[in-house]
């Protein structure tokens, strides 16, 4: 859940502005198992190395971030955000430039680094299904998610306006990957209309896992790490990597962050090969450091998007940053109909 009411967003910005102690910094992410892994893999070694204590906050809230920067009362030093938001936020002047004298830019996969953001981790949207429900034929392509006859039942998709679902609709409708952008929104929404009544929207990773494992929505679009985690917990679920869609979370420093120097050093540790490898092992998301894979065992590497590049498609974050607002208006209007 990332919603709160407006008053609390403003109030929280005021409250969050209580300054951290000297030699403390605040890291904000999405909570849950992901943030636990980030704490273990990044914050713990960073504190050992620098003596700077890292306080955990969350979940990430774009409204709060904007309120903090606008009020000049920034309580967060490093924030884990979605990639397209980071590009837009940088354009809007909400972010500090990354100090690449401290952070090693060359070690980061060039797909996942900009002047104002460094990769946090990357992931793919994949097809996940409950193998108890679909015992005979299993869904393998995005088109299968739109085939109500072959695969009856509720399907689940990411609720928020973000890279992913519209691309999936177009791929399912037969658009070639190289012709995805600029997105044909009319066509995408028309395709989604064909299954709209059968969609349950997930708004958090935990909810997507619950829907899949319980069979409430026995198939859908998932973050690869979340399906892997459900499978590890013993549930009978399957995954299809066909046309998996990569997207990333990135780490940013809000403009006016009180501990900017510590924040840059934190980013240097967080994006280094070993911490990235440790995080990937714990979360099943992929490391953005190009050297991390060498530090991981073959079995873990197999669960990463890096091992499924054959039909992989990179979601176009630049396109999304440019069209984010316009698409969001239409997305939420369509959802509410």
């Amino acid at each position, binding site marked *: 859940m*990332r919603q709160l*009411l*407006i*008053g609390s967003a403003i*109030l929280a910005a005021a409250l969050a502005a209580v300054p951290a102690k000297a030699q403390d910094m605040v890291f904000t992410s999405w909570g849950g198992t992901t943030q636990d892994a980030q704490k273990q893999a990044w914050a713990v070694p960073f504190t050992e190395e620098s003596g700077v204590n890292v306080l955990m906050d969350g979940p990430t*809230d*774009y409204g709060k971030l904007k309120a903090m920067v606008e009020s000049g009362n920034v309580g967060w030093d490093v924030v884990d955000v979605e990639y397209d938001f980071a590009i837009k936020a940088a354009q809007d002047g909400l972010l500090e430039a990354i100090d690449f004298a401290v952070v090693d830019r060359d070690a980061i996969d060039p797909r996942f680094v900009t002047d104002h953001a460094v990769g946090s981790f990357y992931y793919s949207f994949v097809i996940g299904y409950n193998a108890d429900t679909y015992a005979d034929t299993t869904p393998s392509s995005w088109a299968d998610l739109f085939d109500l006859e072959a695969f009856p039942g509720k399907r689940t998709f990411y609720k928020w306006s973000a890279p992913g679902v519209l691309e999936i609709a177009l791929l399912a409708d037969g658009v070639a990957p190289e012709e995805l952008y600029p997105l044909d929104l009319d066509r995408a929404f028309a395709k989604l209309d064909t299954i709209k009544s059968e969609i349950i929207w997930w708004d958090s990773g935990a909810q997507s896992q619950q829907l899949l494992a319980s069979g409430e929505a026995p198939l859908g679009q998932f973050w690869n790490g979340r399906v892997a985690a459900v499978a590890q917990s013993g549930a009978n679920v399957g995954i299809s990597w066909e046309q998996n869609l990569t997207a990333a979370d990135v780490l940013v420093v809000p403009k006016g962050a009180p501990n900017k120097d510590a924040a840059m050093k934190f980013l240097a540790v967080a994006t280094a090969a070993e911490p990235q490898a440790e995080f990937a092992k714990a979360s099943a998301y992929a490391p953005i450091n190009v050297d991390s894979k060498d530090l991981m065992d073959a079995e873990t590497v197999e669960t990463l998007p890096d091992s499924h590049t054959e039909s992989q498609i990179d979601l176009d974050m630049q396109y999304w940053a440019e069209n984010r607002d316009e698409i969001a208006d239409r997305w*939420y209007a369509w959802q*509410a*109909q």
Partner: protein
Amino acid sequence: MTNPAGAARTGLGPAVPAFALLLLFFVVPVVMLLLRSVTEPEFGLQNYAALFGSGTYARVLFNTFLVAALVTVFTLVLAFPVAWFMTVLPGRWATIVFAIVLLSMWTNLLARTYAWLVLLQRTGVINKTLISLGVIDQPLPLVNNLTGVTIGMVYIMLPFMILPLHATLRTIDPAILRAAALCGANRWQAFRRVLVPLVMPGIMAGGLMVFVMSLGYFVTPALLGGTSNMMLAQLIAQLVQSLLNWGLGGAAAFVLLVVTLAIYALQIRLLDTRRLATQGAV
């Protein structure tokens, strides 16, 4: 009470912290929000025009009132017998029922709402039981829609209806109903023409409280509703947090505030008129 002005003066001092808190953390942010709604992205009423002009937002407004009305009606229908029961029960039992009603109010809202999710979902307790009993062969769509929101909210609002109804019912002399029966009224007539008019202040108070609370409700519709049943509070959260459109979000929040205040004013007026009418009758 002999000198109300004096009482107000002496009572003022201790109330200052609460007033200051409200002023600082409610009035000031609301005014700032209102200002944003007429200044972002530029000075003017464009946000309000967008809010009322777009089919989507109009739909959200309509849906908000629809849910609030449905919840109020169902809550009233369910609460009335409980309130009546509590009134006629002997003291000790009434206390126990009272405690149960209050207990449900004091249990965490999120926990209660998630519990409904577990009960209502397609693979939930209710559907599984009905299917295994052979009553249905396909799960009923009880959640992620208007049904789910209404069920969840009626449940949460029940105490807010039961308590005012009970408070009013308690003041009614049961002999009045016997008198009605003696005068030849059947049970329905006694209920409809004697009891209901007497309880009307309680019905109005409870009804308006539930209606107004429902208008601004967030958690339950967010968890039990689908995207097509969005209510105003969800729209505000979405505009503020996902779209970062604080101008439009401010406008939506202000509309919600104005509607709430208008209904509150109506309530005061209606109760006043009623009191006058009753006094006139006596």
